[in-house]
């Protein structure tokens, strides 16, 4: 299967796997409870907009992103919405669709 390239905002990845690895490395740079910084948020926003459930995940609008604990001791990105609600999303789902 040929590699599928993907463009997320200003970033272009030759393979989707590269985008996933990049985002996972980004996740790894944060501690749980951290607010994601503005630069990283640009890429995350693009990734979330690419999510198959984007409309539902984004809801009232993206305020910013956090890293928090998720089920079974894992960690993931969470989107903080304008209305104060929050929801986690998976990097893989955002990229693979």
């Amino acid at each position, binding site marked *: 299967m040929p590699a599928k390239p993907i463009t997320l905002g200003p970033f272009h990845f030759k393979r989707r796997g590269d985008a996933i690895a990049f985002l996972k490395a980004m996740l790894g740079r*944060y*501690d749980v*409870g951290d607010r994601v910084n503005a630069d990283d948020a640009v890429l995350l926003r693009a990734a979330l907009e690419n999510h198959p459930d984007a409309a539902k995940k984004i809801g009232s609008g993206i305020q910013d992103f956090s890293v*928090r*604990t998720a089920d079974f001791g894992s960690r993931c990105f969470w989107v903080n919405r304008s209305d104060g609600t*929050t929801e986690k999303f998976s990097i893989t789902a955002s990229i693979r669709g």
Partner: protein
Amino acid sequence: MSLADLQSWLLQQGVRRDLDTITRLTVRNELDNLAPETSVNLSASIDWPRLLLAGSILARSDQRVDQEASLRVATAAISLTNDQALKDAAAVLMGKLSNFRAITLATDRGLVKAGLNGRLGFALRLESQRREVDRSILVQSSGAWLQVNDFQQRFWTNAAGNSWLSASAPTASGKTFLVLQWLIDQMIAGESRVVVYLAPTRALVSEIETNLKELLGSTELIEVSSLPLVAKYKAAQAGGARVILVFTQERLHLLANVLSDVLSVDLLIVDEAHKIGDNQRGVILQDAIERATRANPKMKAVFISPATQNPEELITDAPDGVKTISIDSDASTVLQNLMVATQVPRKSKRWKLTFRQQGSEIPIGILQLASTPAGLKKRLAFIAAAVGERGGTLVYANGAGEAEEVADLISQILPKLEPIDLELTQLAELARKGVHNDFRLAPLVELGVAFHYGNMPSLLRLEIERLFRTGKIRFLVCTSTLIEGVNLSCRTIVVRGPRKGKGHPMEPHDFWNLAGRAGRWGDEFQGNIICIDPEDKQAWPAGVPSRARYPIKRESDAVLELGDGMADYLSKRGLSDPSSIEDMNKFEQVGAYLLTTFMRLGSISAASLAKRHDAASIAKLDQALGSLAEQIEISVELAARHPGVSAVGLQRLLEAFRAYPGDVENLLPAEVASNDSYDRFITIMRRVNEHLFLAFTPDTRIKLYALVVVKWLKGYSLTRIIRDSIDWHQMVGRSYKLPELIRGTMELVEQIARFRAPKYLSAYMDVLHLHLREVGRDDLIDDGMDIGTQLEFGVSSTTLLSLMELGLSRMSAVALYEKIARDDLSREECIAWVNERAGQIHAMDIPAIIIREVRERLALPDEVAK
């Protein structure tokens, strides 16, 4: 023959047989469910006039045994004879012993007819009146005369002036009562504007605060507060209402921090002062005393301790030139009957009771149990239920879980009370609504039985203690919290193999601190201590202990006396990974104290403690401290704000902040309402563990700790935290046992949210602020309430804080806050809110005891409660 020889002869031979007889008879009167005796009328054979004469000779001795024998004679003559002349003579004897409360009790009970003085001959009346005058003290503030015993009088006389005082007396000698009286007198008639009353446990803080408020009534001249907030302190300094701040050592440090050590305490009272030797918190207490003294070298200090061997030890560090006085009493105010209970061979429901005193034994009788005591818990429960059926019975259990079970067993063999007393019903309501609907305490108190342990919310615990004092709760099963500083006495105490904390056999002085609670002076003539299975080596590894007193030794001195341990520890503490150091918990607190002292003075040889240790070991410590101090940029002021937290740890944390690659905002705790708050606390606790001190262990529990901290800060009630935990267990399909879950939640709140987290997170924040200033991000520094204070009180909203500032317990404050919409109300606005709803409060489903507290603290008219 000298007087002392005569006294000794009387006790050994002269009246020995009669003394044994009256001991047996008076003790038997104290106990329930004894098998009847068929023997002859023993009291008829006693030569009372001779015995009373002997009693009056023994009363002149200052030896405890002589005084006890004399009090025994007086008590026996009052309760065993019908002859008014003998009873009068016995009352005179009590007067000779300065035991005026016992005379009042005898008169109140109708054992001695009123108008005693009128029946005495002229000479005796003069003598008695002289004694009453001699044994009276003048309360300056009210102009009233107070009748006191020898210890109380010596305290009152010596407490005047500027000297430092250390007073030691056994429990039940009227210590606390007198000290509080004296304190109020100082405040009203004396010069003291700011007094700090240090009580080393939160339980004692709430008790003393409540007592003081009751004694002060509605006076506006003196404020009492247990919150480390500056408003009342500053008002008192500025000439407003004087203030008594009732604090734990940690809270005094919090206040000193807020005031940046510009703190002027006029009088410092340290209660339960022997706890300066406690593991881990003793040195924090020592540090608090030294800190207050540094801030005001003219401060007067008064130390109070239960029976101690060396009360003078506490005042050895008084500033130069300050006079010191130590007073010590071993007087007995009530008779304390120590008995051992042994099973009659092959008769499990029959237990032989034997009285013990100075190596001699007197058989008392056979106790009959209602049911076969299979197992140790049943043994404790059934013996207590039988021997102390008339109430006032305290049962000692090893641990909170055991206390609950023993209380449950006792309740099952007691007759049901019908109808249930209103106050007991209200206490049960508080247990159900304030903890959990199925909290075991609720059905038990309806039967007049309760249990009691340290992590319980104070409102609940204080009400249990109050109803035990008034007799409505007849049996109270307690844990070692009681010897950690709760003033509670009883009529009878039942104990089997007592341990202190988790598993350590109790030392004799701890045992006697506990046993000394038997006998409520002024309410009873005698107290009884029943020790079960005295020969059982597992229960009593060293036998039932003989009377003993606390040796006072500062924790810092005790740790230094361990030899080179401290120097070794200090040399390793600077390593990059200190987690491998053994005995970290033993050395960290004292190590931190030494390091801060070194940083302040340049050498610990200049510190007070140096005089108690040899120069070589001090020099060795100086060397280790010197090489640590070289690595530290943290200022001594910052280090001193966090007693028990090592400056090395603070330095490592600062370095970690400097090396942090991310956005500095992520180093701050997130706002408690934010979605990030819980996760941020997880990361902060891990950061504390890694750099500052391994405070939150094991790592697998950090999430739970963070969760409790967030909920506590959000102002959740204990009920809600417990309910959430149950919901979580059910959601993930984990099994749980309700009593354990309830106790576990209480423990998390008290030990993590209110103790560990404030201590280490407040240090974390201070270092972070230093870092933020270094990197020019002062904009991120919020100068609101310190996180340590927020955590200790479990508040993050202004309304909740205002309610607690008004003197409400957190439980009551939270219950009200659940009904108040706004989160920014001041104290006045809170009072207005309640006043506007005065007619509706009782319809709000708030427990009656909470409404009572609201009414008392907010000084509302009575109809609010109705």
